[in-house]
């Protein structure tokens, strides 16, 4: 792979359908916020100083000790990418939407070839270390992020305060600087109407829930990201364990909801195969409709109603049909109407290639 591949191939390691609890948990992410003690936070830096930060981080990251501990990291500067390419990084969840907005001077991304490890430079903080794995892998993602952090800290002087821990531009991230999250596919809880209550309960437990790609009340594709909000006063392992415990319960609830739905088997089968039929043969499709149908299809695959479609492919399609990737695939700017035609074709081509669906 490599950077060119990252920008042309919609596939990423986190989309693999082989992670633990993949029927419900799409991916797990850990993010560590770190700042250099000798610089003001990025939003107060002059462009030349941002370049200095970028340079300092790159020097630290390109040392052989880092490569031997956590793998080789490649640097890309945002100014060297086209707007569409930057948007692709967002759609593949490698950078935040804010990262590609505003002045891009000094902003860069360190990326390991498999896209599991990445570091945003000069986002809200100087460094945002991220590890992204398929399935429920919070512990593994944390351990990896911890190693990347240690490796970079061999030469970087972090801003750290005995009482407040790792100092961050926003006090909501201070302390551990740790944000742990999982992306969950929860069509069962949505269909049985239990999702709103679940969201309320989670926020009472100090967790944040947001719909992915979503507009309005229903998250597109029934994908929800659940993360910790408190970063100070708890150890990293404690934060990870806490979220893990709650996600395990959510998985159980989602499976229970799916079982309830499965009692009306014919109805559910009909829903899943209709979704497959439309995705397989439609000639124009909006991203919203496609997300809804892909969610139904993913549910069908997870429940074994439809056989032969890999789970990872469904996740990949959910990413592939996002606007920038659609544009990138055909190589020119498209009107929304043209996009719908291209999107339908992309989905058809992927589904045509798999044999023995039943």
């Amino acid at each position: 792979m490599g950077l060119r591949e990252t920008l042309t191939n919609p596939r990423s390691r986190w989309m693999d359908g082989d992670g633990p609890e993949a029927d419900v948990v799409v991916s797990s992410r850990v993010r560590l916020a770190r700042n250099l003690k000798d610089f003001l936070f990025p939003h107060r830096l002059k462009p030349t100083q941002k370049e200095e930060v970028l340079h300092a981080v790159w020097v630290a990251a390109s040392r052989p000790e880092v490569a031997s501990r956590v793998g080789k990291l490649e640097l890309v500067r945002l100014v060297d990418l086209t707007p569409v390419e930057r948007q692709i990084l967002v759609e593949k969840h490698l950078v935040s939407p804010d990262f590609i907005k505003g002045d891009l001077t000094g902003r860069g991304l360190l990326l390991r070839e498999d896209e599991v490890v990445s570091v945003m430079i000069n986002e809200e903080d100087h460094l945002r270390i991220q590890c992204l794995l398929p399935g429920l892998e919070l512990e593994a993602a944390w351990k990896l992020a911890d190693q990347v952090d240690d490796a970079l800290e061999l030469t970087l002087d972090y801003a750290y305060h005995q009482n407040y821990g790792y100092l961050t531009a926003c006090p909501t991230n201070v302390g551990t600087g740790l944000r742990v999250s999982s992306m969950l596919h929860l069509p069962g809880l949505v269909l049985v109407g239990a999702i709103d209550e679940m969201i309320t309960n989670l926020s009472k437990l100090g967790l944040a829930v947001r719909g992915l790609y979503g507009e309005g009340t229903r998250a597109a594709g029934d994908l929800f990201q659940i993360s910790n909000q408190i970063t100070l006063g708890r150890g990293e392992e404690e934060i990870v364990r806490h979220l893990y415990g709650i996600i395990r319960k959510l998985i159980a609830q989602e499976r229970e909801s799916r079982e309830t739905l499965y009692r009306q088997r014919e109805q559910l089968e009909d829903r899943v195969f209709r979704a497959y039929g439309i995705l397989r043969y439609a000639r124009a499709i909006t991203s919203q409709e496609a997300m809804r149908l892909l969610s139904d299809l993913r549910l069908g695959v997870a429940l074994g109603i439809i056989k032969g479609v890999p789970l990872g492919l469904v996740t990949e399609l959910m990413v592939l049909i996002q606007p920038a990737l659609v544009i990138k695939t055909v190589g020119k700017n498209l009107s929304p109407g043209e996009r719908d035609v291209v999107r339908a074709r992309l989905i058809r081509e992927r589904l045509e290639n798999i044999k023995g669906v039943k």
Partner: protein
Amino acid sequence: MLCERCHKRPATVHYTEIVNNQKKELHLCEECAREMGVSFGFPPQFPFHSLLSGLFFPAGEEVEAEREVRCPRCGLTEREFAARGLLGCPQCYSALRPAVEQVLRRVHGVARHTGKAPRRQKEVVGKLTEIERLRRELAEAVRREEYERAAELRDRIRELEKNTGGKAENGSKGNSD
């Protein structure tokens, strides 16, 4: 029953909301309830930025510009912090300490880090924080009735306390600027 927000004080304010036949309950202590504005009859929500400005600058109160606290390193004022929700540099945490601590307590419930420390700084601060972390784990282990684990933790704490001259109690009071 303990307050659902601070998990420390007993819950004395019980808040029930029914929307579309969905019942939501919230049990809080008086302090948290007041802070969250439950008594005003709207569901508790705290968008960070609005919370910040309300925190330092109650309606009608103006601070004279020259008397306002300013970070000596980057020049950020409390007002600017309140407006954007972002600090300007690492030193702001000490310079704007009262405001910062108020926010930290509100967002995180505490103002004291107990997690990881940079390895190269660890020698200085690591041991004390480590003891606090272990104490928390010990309490957790006892609560879960994992006594073998608790015994291990207790021994580890004793060991560390020996090395730091038993100063762990004072760990959070030192001037750490």
